[in-house]
């Protein structure tokens, strides 16, 4: 481990510890733990939402996807930005006014009843877990890249343990401030790196894009080899390319409105107006950030070269690898070792950004970028853990198991205990799934969020006739079908796939919506209809939202 890296990592963890220490005294109630007492300002919340989005998966994942696949990686960035319009126009303000701690509060507002709450909690737990695994996989890649002696599984475990400390002691307030600080650092780092990339091309976009069109990338199938990075089709190719791309687009643009850890952020602000302002801040920051990731991704492809994006292996280890692991490629690998001083046995798209930093700014900048990415993962995972633990402690334990009779101390204890459990499970899953591109893994989490949560959430806020039965069946259909289709897809079954698309949203979202409509028309629900005036007035005016 280089000294710069060690110092940077220690510095960043130290900053976080100070924030946690400061926040620890302020989050002694469950309301503080979940929502920071609803006292976060719109601007601060906007920076924190941007922080949730400028995650390791988008920073490392999108930069990597763009470096390897060009435009197809850029599609993720577009979808994730436009997705905030769904949140802005349809969800954020009524959600802020109708809910208190969790998504289940909103879906269960007039559809009160144990089934609705249990299902809403179940979808929250599933989505956050999928999302968290993607982040942890990213953590494994980056720590392993920097500290080669630490293997990926151990890196994932270290990251998971640190994150638990954040959540257990700091709660929502600490998590929010860690996010805000991190957003600032990450934007600064991305800006610096992008300027260096453009400087490399003398600030001429023409020659930058021209170089990107000529950069060698990974060619997967015959026709793809002729496509350059500026053209669509390098990632999504083959017979179902078009549908696959559309399905991903549906998942991305609708999924954000169903992500529990993002929705939960709107419970931390004092008013619907502040919720709206936080989105304005977030969309501005996220948009700029994604433009920068494109510059970094194309920069990594042209300046570093995709062939070199992966763990660099030098000296004795390289020779051992050539002689024992891959002797059939010995001549080519030996030539590479002579030319560059290292070999790259496996390409890893997740490390494009830090390697670009190393190529342009030397090891100090690379250490800074890696430390920022690392702190990003911790902060995002902490936010996810709060969302998951509140779903368990508030929805399942307090409301369902204890029938709202448990005391403050017990709730907080259960929340912390479930944070521990969620952390442990996702660590185990991430260790199993390491090596997959993290942006791609996230695409699946978005598909589940879009299908399981979005129809039930939007319809419960807007449709008077919507019923408990419909909410439960829509959530069940969305969750079940999206998970089942992923299990039958090429992602899991490879060439034996039964469902041909990589992303299930194009089937599972319409299905969940259809089920919601049919179930609503099947049987009326007078209690749900009677509660609608209260929900509607409250959601649109904020009356009764402060209790």
């Amino acid at each position, binding site marked *: 481990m280089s000294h710069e890296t060690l110092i940077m990592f220690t510095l960043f963890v130290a900053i976080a510890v100070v924030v946690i220490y400061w926040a620890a005294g302020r989050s002694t109630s469950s309301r503080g733990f979940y929502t920071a007492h609803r006292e976060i300002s719109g601007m601060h919340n906007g920076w924190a939402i941007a922080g949730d989005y400028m995650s390791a998966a988008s920073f490392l994942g999108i930069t990597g996807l763009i470096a390897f696949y060009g435009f197809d990686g850029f599609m993720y960035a577009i979808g994730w930005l436009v997705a905030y319009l769904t949140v802005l126009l*349809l969800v954020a303000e009524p959600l802020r006014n109708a809910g208190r701690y969790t998504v289940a509060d909103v879906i269960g507002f007039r559809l009160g009843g144990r089934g609705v709450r249990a299902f809403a909690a179940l979808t929250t737990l599933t989505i956050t877990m999928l999302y968290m695994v993607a982040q942890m996989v990213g953590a494994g890649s980056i720590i392993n890249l920097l500290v080669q002696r630490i293997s990926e599984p151990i890196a994932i475990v270290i990251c998971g343990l640190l994150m638990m400390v954040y959540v257990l002691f700091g709660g929502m307030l600490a998590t929010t401030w860690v996010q805000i600080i991190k957003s600032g650092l990450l934007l600064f780092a991305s800006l610096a790196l992008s300027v260096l990339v453009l400087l490399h091309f003398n600030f001429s976009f*023409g020659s930058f*894009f021209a170089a990107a069109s000529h950069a060698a990338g990974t060619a997967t199938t015959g026709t793809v080899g002729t496509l350059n990075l500026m053209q669509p089709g390098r990632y999504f190719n083959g017979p179902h390319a078009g549908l696959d791309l559309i399905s991903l687009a549906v998942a991305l643009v609708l999924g954000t409105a169903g992500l529990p850890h993002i929705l939960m952020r709107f419970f931390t602000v004092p008013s619907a107006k502040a919720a709206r302002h936080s989105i304005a801040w977030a969309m501005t920051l996220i948009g700029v950030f994604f433009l920068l990731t494109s510059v970094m991704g194309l920069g990594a492809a042209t300046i570093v070269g995709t062939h070199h994006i992966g763990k660099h292996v030098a000296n004795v280890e390289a020779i051992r690898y050539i002689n024992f692991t891959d002797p059939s490629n010995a001549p080519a690998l030996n030539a590479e070792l002579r030319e560059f001083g290292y070999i790259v046995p496996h390409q890893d798209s997740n490390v494009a950004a830090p390697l670009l930093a190393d190529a342009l700014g030397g090891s100090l900048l690379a250490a800074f970028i890696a430390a920022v990415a690392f702190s990003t993962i911790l902060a995002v995972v902490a936010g996810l853990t709060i969302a998951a633990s509140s779903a368990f402690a508030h929805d399942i334990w307090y409301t369902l198991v204890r029938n709202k009779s448990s005391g403050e101390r017990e709730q907080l204890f259960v929340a912390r205990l479930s944070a521990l459990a969620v952390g442990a499970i996702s660590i185990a899953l991430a260790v199993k799934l390491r090596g997959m591109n993290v942006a791609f893994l996230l695409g699946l989490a978005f598909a589940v969020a879009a299908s399981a949560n979005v129809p039930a959430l939007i319809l419960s806020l807007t449709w008077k006739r919507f019923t408990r039965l419909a909410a439960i069946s829509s959530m069940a259909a969305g969750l079940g079908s999206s998970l089942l289709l992923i299990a039958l897809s090429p992602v899991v079954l490879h060439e034996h796939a039964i469902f041909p698309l990589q992303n299930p949203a194009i089937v599972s979202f319409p299905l969940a919506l259809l089920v919601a409509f049919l179930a609503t028309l099947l049987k009326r629900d007078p209690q749900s209809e009677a509660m609608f005036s209260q929900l509607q007035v409250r959601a649109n005016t904020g009356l009764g939202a402060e209790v």
Partner: protein
Amino acid sequence: MQHHHLTAREWDKLAADPQFQALLRERRRFVIPASIFFLLFYLSLPIGIAIAPTFMGKPAFGGLTVAFALGLLQFVMAWGVLFLYMREAKIFDLKAEAIATRAHEEFAP
């Protein structure tokens, strides 16, 4: 169940209030067309790529392909809709506040 100080009858009365109904209508008049517009605008990009991948890969200007240029246009669209909504929502806020204040006076304990 949420805590609230108003009775079901009072909530119904508020929901039926002409001012409140007018606010809902105005909101819908903005939100529904805006949502349809941005979803169609966004989905037209992947659908366009699915239908005409070769055309989307053709150079447009300044070294950008058609697909990349249209992708950047999505950023402009997203920020544009955001700007318009933020402007519109100020009016919704005033009306919502007026209704809330009136309700507080009318139903204050």
